[in-house]
């Protein structure tokens, strides 16, 4: 049913479900949300299925008008939700009457917001997923004038309203995060100094970042001048990579692979961001953030991910 009219958008505003599985061997990225935790929480508050379609608002803002009564939830960080003179909190579902105008405005402290609707947005399924992948021509960006449809809510709207997700208990969004990583399969291609520089340095997100990857810039320090040095200049054959893979090209400045990352890549991978910490990195702002990496063991990473997923176990009746 017709739900929202798009009045204005800037930046990159797309539909995202939980991602496109099964086509990476054909060169199709996984896609899905940049911040999986915020995406999942929006659906959880609205009693939607885990892979329901949510609007990702990145690097800009969006304004909508409700075509009928509905319940919305906005998650993420670095944004505020404004309805005329009122401000709605993020991470709380709210009731919107037909005709009301809702604006998702960029402030500071993050890059990506997620707007969910009770019932989930409707979008065309391509290769088994409704996630937009612009470079591959799968779906298209949301534009002013678009009329957005949604499915039937799981329960009556009043019962889905004013639900709060206790985000601070699970995810500590910050512009100076310590991001946990697991050693990568090619860590031995780097010099001992290079590995020390990687773990001992601070980084900020470069201005050239997108859904495909986050280029990081080493912040100046005595050891950072050479970047992350490699012991061998021999080429690595292209091989599969995944969300959070940290590739280091010859210039010594790392690139972290994000949602629209190619399925394969040819630079050595020094480490891999753990799934539990990907949202923290996704929300780091260009030029502002101060990022550090810390190595942990695989078992601990998987425990962290399991713990985070328990946040969604029992949707409240």
């Amino acid at each position, binding site marked *: 049913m017709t739900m929202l009219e798009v009045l204005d958008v800037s930046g990159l505003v797309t539909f995202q479900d939980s991602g496109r599985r099964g*086509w990476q061997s054909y060169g199709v990225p996984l896609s899905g949300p940049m911040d999986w935790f915020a995406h999942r929480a929006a659906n959880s508050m609205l009693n939607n299925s885990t892979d329901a379609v949510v609007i990702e608002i990145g690097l800009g803002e969006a304004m909508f008008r409700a075509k009928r009564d509905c319940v919305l939830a906005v998650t993420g960080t670095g944004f505020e939700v404004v309805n005329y003179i009122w401000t709605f909190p993020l991470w709380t579902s709210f009731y919107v009457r037909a005709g009301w105008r809702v604006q998702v405005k960029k402030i500071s402290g993050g890059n990506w917001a997620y707007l969910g609707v009770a019932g989930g947005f409707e979008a065309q399924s391509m290769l088994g997923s409704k996630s937009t992948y612009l470079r591959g*021509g799968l779906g298209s960006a949301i534009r002013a004038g678009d009329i957005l449809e949604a499915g039937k809510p799981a329960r009556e709207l009043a019962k889905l309203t004013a639900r709060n997700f206790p985000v601070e208990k699970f995810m500590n969004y910050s512009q100076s995060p310590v991001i946990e990583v697991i050693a990568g399969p090619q860590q031995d291609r780097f010099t001992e100094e290079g590995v020390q520089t990687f773990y001992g340095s601070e980084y900020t997100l470069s201005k050239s970042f997108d859904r495909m990857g986050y280029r990081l810039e080493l912040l100046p320090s005595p050891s950072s001048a050479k970047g992350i040095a490699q012991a061998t200049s021999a080429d690595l054959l292209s091989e599969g990579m995944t969300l959070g893979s940290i590739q280091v090209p010859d210039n010594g400045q790392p690139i972290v692979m994000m949602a629209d990352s190619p399925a394969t890549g040819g630079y050595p991978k020094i480490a*891999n961001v753990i*799934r539990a910490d990907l949202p923290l990195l996704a929300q780091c702002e260009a030029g502002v953030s101060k990022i550090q990496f810390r190595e942990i063991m695989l078992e601990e990473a998987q425990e962290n991910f399991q713990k985070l997923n328990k946040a969604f176990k029992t949707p409240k009746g």
Partner: protein
Amino acid sequence: MLKPLGDSALLVQLGDEINPALNQRVHALNALLQNPIHGILETVPAYSTLLIHYDPLTLTFDQAAHWVRDKMTQLDDSFHRTPRRLEVPVRYGNASGPDLETVAVSKGISPADVIRIHSEREYTVYMMGFTPGFPYMGTLDERLIMPRIATPRTLVKAGTVAIAASQTGIYPLDSPGGWHLIGWTPLKLFDPTSETPFLFSPGDVVKFIPLESLESNSLLFDQ
């Protein structure tokens, strides 16, 4: 050799070079891993490696690795996969392949030689990537080996057949590209609305058929 890549993937390394026999082993192992156990999400074959994505809420690394090792014991030289064979019509040179002349000049052979050498052997789709449906094929005859172009083009037309280093490929979508463009095929490599969205699969065997020789059969398509 099995190694973790992050907390949700497992990398199987079978070797460290571009080699048709080694790559066949990768595709043979990949074939053995279809119909997987619960929690295995997808596999990505490459030149000498296979990446296995798994769900860490369902499987630990050790459980996934145990399953893969078990399958690897079935991977011996007696295991033969029969690859799919595809013929790809190509119009070489001119507007279809603007770099054909340059390649010929820098290799000291004629454009006709480039066409003959490129189209006379069969290639294996070693892996796919770059953009959806892009096949990395090899191995190219030594007489055609050239480094990538210094400044990649911002727009290469979909269907363009290209070479770089020891490989040949076809651009499935209009996209930037750094390879030498020698021809164009009217075949559609990627159609997201189709039941079979991709023309190629990793492991396929491909032969190029110069369109000139088919002209009498009126198979020439207008660009």
